[in-house]
């Protein structure tokens, strides 16, 4: 009997056993927060979809005749809670069904990920040869740990902004703070314009019932701008009142918010280049070394004569500056860290394991990267590279904020 099969008995565990099993912690705070947000989103969706039925039940309200009066009463209460200005509840409920896709210029910088493809392509990279994706291990850590509501009370600035929302495709929550002064000014300008005309643009009742997604721009002084799609048109809701703001102004607002991703773009560029260097290191790309191996160091180890790095610690440091420890261990642990590392030192000189030399590195194309899944703690970037066969393929970099430094935590061949 295999080890795992021993535990098959738990499939029929009774309540008492389940209760005891649940005492063992298994979910991190981030996992819990993510599941909670999702449950709220679904509850809201369920409430909205049953809204019509509820109204019918209310019109014929008759507890004696109704089959399930208690359930109807309960649903009515929840709907009321959603419709009322119960701020946090609405933020939770609405924020959970939001989308970034399809919003004019914003679309160019932030796109949701497409989970459909996950097959290895045909590059000669060391990473791909290893056929390891760090993506899975990072999915769980991509959630926004800072929550769904971010008032910036006490800020020294007149007004700060935070953007939060969720894509229906990837169902990944995004959240980030806008701190760039110029960008803050641009947003202020557009919002001033909107505030001036909004009273003339109040939308009719139930105008938001067809909404398909959106996100919230929340301010430090507690104003929530909820931008959603109603049919094909974006609509603005300010503190729970719907407005038919002219398209042009909403486009301007979207454009003003979009550059938030540019900071991530620069980091992604840096890390993309670092990945190519490290992958090249893993395969000994561009290494120039003496022909004969040195028996004092080990069979196959040859002294490097021309190389960009001069010591093992320098290589190690470069890798750790750009990748998380887990990612290095998963994919590039053999560069300097195993019993037979790719690089080792002997009497102050750097040696390479010529037996392990192979094609490696990435040849990036000119195609711009696309930044996805932006949160305060992580984001991803999709880059295109040339394959050995002359085609192109895409690679997704998972990037996390590791104690204030953006580092790669995984990659995925799309």
């Amino acid at each position: 009997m295999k080890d795992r099969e021993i535990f098959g008995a738990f499939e029929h565990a009774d309540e008492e056993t389940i209760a005891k099993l649940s005492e063992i912690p298994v979910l991190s705070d981030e996992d819990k927060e993510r599941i909670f947000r999702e449950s709220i989103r679904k509850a809201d969706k369920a409430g909205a979809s049953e809204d019509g039925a509820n109204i019918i039940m209310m019109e014929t309200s008759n507890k004696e005749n109704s089959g399930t009066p208690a359930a109807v009463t309960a649903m009515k209460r929840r709907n009321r809670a959603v419709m009322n200005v119960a701020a946090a509840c609405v933020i939770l409920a609405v924020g959970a069904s939001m989308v970034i896709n399809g919003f004019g210029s914003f679309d160019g910088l932030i796109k949701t990920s497409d989970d459909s493809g996950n097959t290895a392509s045909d590059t000669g990279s060391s990473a791909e040869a290893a056929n390891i994706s760090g993506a899975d291990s990072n999915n769980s850590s991509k959630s926004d740990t800072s929550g769904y509501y971010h008032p910036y009370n006490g800020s020294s600035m007149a007004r700060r902004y935070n953007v939060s929302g969720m894509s229906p495709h990837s169902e990944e929550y995004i959240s980030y703070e806008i701190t760039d002064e110029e960008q803050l000014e641009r947003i202020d300008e557009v919002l001033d314009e909107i505030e001036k005309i909004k009273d003339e643009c109040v939308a009719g009742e139930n105008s938001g019932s067809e909404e398909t997604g959106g996100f919230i721009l929340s301010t430090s002084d507690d104003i929530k701008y909820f931008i959603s799609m109603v049919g094909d048109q974006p609509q603005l809701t300010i503190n729970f009142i719907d407005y038919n703001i002219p398209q042009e102004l909403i486009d301007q607002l979207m454009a003003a918010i979009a550059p938030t991703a540019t900071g991530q773009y620069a980091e992604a560029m840096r890390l993309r280049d670092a990945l190519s260097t490290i992958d090249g290191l893993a395969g000994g790309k561009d290494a120039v070394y003496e022909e004969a191996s040195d028996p004092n160091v080990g069979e196959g180890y040859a002294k490097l004569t021309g190389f960009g790095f001069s010591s093992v610690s320098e290589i190690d440091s470069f890798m750790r500056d750009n990748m998380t420890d887990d990612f290095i261990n998963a994919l590039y642990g053999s560069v300097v860290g195993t019993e037979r590392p790719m690089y080792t030192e002997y009497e102050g000189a750097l040696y390479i394991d010529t037996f392990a030399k192979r094609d490696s590195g990435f040849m990036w194309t000119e195609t711009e990267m696309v930044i996805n899944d932006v949160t305060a703690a992580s984001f991803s970037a999709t880059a295109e590279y040339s394959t050995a066969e002359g085609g192109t393929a895409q690679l997704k970099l998972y990037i996390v904020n590791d104690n204030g430094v953006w580092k790669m935590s995984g990659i995925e061949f799309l």
Partner: protein
Amino acid sequence: MTGSDYSALCKQSPDKAYKTLFDEYCNYVYAVVTSKLRSCGTREDIEECVSDIFAEIYTKYDVDDNYDGDMRGYIAVIAKRRAIRRFHTLTQQGLTVSLDDENAPEVADDRDAEAEEKQAMLARLLLEKVKSLGEPDSSIVIQKYFYNRSSAEIAKLLGMNPAGVRMRCRRAISRLKTIIDIKDLEM
């Protein structure tokens, strides 16, 4: 948390009520769902099912019903029902068969109540033995073999080294095998 506690909290602040309920029963619901889906579902399936369950509770629980008992019973029913439904979806076992279907007479309930009761008993016994391994070994074993967590994830959760987790797990399983009768579990 009793039903009336939840109702009172709900009337005060639905958000607070949902969060409190979730915090209190999240691990329990997760365990219920894992027990049903661990053989056929991914972690994402389990999480999705857990969020479905809580969404159903938020929307369906009658807050006017002043039920003084623990909410766990109510939650357990919803959780099991949802998890079993998801199990059928994942294993593509239809829940309904048309009587006009020519194969209908051959469709029989393949559940064996006696065997399931025995499995439940074995699960109790197994958990007891696992617990007897002591901490952190019992937690490591449960997380690895019941919740299907990797050594790295367990290490992170318990503040340990992944290699240390692997080593402890291996030894714990060896010890477990010496204190349980494998033949019982194979039945």
